[in-house]
């Protein structure tokens, strides 16, 4: 997914009912940030202002199974975006608000796979609003885990209702599930607009910025089904082995891998190889040249359920030249 200035950036806004999604949405629509924003919502009534570029969506999920790869797309979004593009000059950013119990995957995959949508738009970030007071009741819910796992930005909201130690515990637990996300503590979904709009989280060339704290053996002290696995290793990789390993991984565990992202150092090639994936969908490309003063480090992150960190690392190391 290449970004060009003519592509509309898209923010996916998710979170449980009552977490503060709509409050954030209304802030985005009323804040004077200089951007004209179009919005796709599930219920018109939720948007508290009269806004001409608000479109109601009824989820239509279609499974695209080509025999080898299975992905889901939102047919309603394809229709709406096609129609919105007729008013392309009226907006500069698109926000899609999902339902409280939504799985973000079909929304994200729609932007990965549909040719028209991916030509006209560019996924900017998945923003998840989490109710700091009540998330404890939902940790085990699949939807809550998915919404956290897919997030690039998490607003840990209603922080005034919980203690500092509870907040630290929540942040630790969220990070063990999704070490790629950035967490902001908020009250009433108050946040600088730059933190949620224009993030560029899906730009392949962005650095992973893996926190070293989460590379340790005890990084997964919570017994959550969903976890992050990070691999950071020097060394050169043999490309045919990388292709074979990742292909097998996607076939066998694609359903359980929510997101993956990486930068690879391939033997004999001076360009960085970068990739990102959502379930079975994989997008890889040659990126810029490694700089001469740059540490050619391989960095990979997998976020998913039922992941075996030791096996992932062993299989990765087996790709070394």
């Amino acid at each position, binding site marked *: 997914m290449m970004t060009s200035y003519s592509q509309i950036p898209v923010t996916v806004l998710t979170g449980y009912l009552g977490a503060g999604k709509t409050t954030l949405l209304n802030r985005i629509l009323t804040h004077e940030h200089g951007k004209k924003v179009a919005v796709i919502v599930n219920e018109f009534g939720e948007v508290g202002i009269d806004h001409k570029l608000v479109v109601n969506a009824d989820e239509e999920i279609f499974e*695209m*199974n080509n025999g*080898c790869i299975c*992905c889901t797309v939102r*047919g309603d979004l*394809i229709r709406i975006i096609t129609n919105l593009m007729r008013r392309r000059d009226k907006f500069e950013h698109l926000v899609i608000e999902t339902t409280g119990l939504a799985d973000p995957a079909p929304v994200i995959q729609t932007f990965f796979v549909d040719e028209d949508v991916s030509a006209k738009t560019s996924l900017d970030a998945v923003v998840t609003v989490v109710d700091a007071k009540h998330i404890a009741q939902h940790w085990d819910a699949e939807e809550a885990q998915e919404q956290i796992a897919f997030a690039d930005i998490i607003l840990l909201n209603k922080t005034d209702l919980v203690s500092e130690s509870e907040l630290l515990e929540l942040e630790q637990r969220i990070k063990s599930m999704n070490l790629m996300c950035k967490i902001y503590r908020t009250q009433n979904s108050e946040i600088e607009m730059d933190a949620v709009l224009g993030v560029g989280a899906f730009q392949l060339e962005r650095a992973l910025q893996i926190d070293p704290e989460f590379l340790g053996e005890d990084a997964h002290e919570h017994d959550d089904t969903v976890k992050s696995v990070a691999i950071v290793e020097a060394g050169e990789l043999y490309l*045919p082995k990388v292709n074979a390993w990742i292909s097998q991984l996607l076939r066998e565990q694609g359903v359980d891998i929510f997101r993956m992202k990486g930068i690879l150092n391939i033997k004999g090639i001076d360009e960085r190889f970068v990739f990102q994936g959502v379930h079975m969908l994989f997008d*890889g490309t040659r990126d810029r040249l490694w700089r001469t003063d740059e540490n050619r480090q391989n960095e990979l992150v997998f976020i998913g359920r039922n992941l075996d960190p030791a096996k992932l690392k062993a299989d990765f190391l087996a790709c070394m030249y």
Partner: protein
Amino acid sequence: MSIDLFPKKPAVTSAQTQQVKSWLYEILQIDHRTVISLSQLQCQDLNCPPIQTAIAIMTTPHRVIRIHKAIPDITYNDVVEAITK
């Protein structure tokens, strides 16, 4: 044949996508308001060609057809064959 997960992907123009869609609307005799989604997908199976085009036609019930070519290479006859298969 080995799988290449980092291929130089064929560039697809909007005109090419719209051409395939217009063939589909014509052959299937469906309303232009029906959403058709075209996706070029890489396949991780050695038995598949490296790039396939998956086409979701969002009628009720919806239909997915596959053409074992990249979008720029698809011809009218490819579409006819895929639909009648």
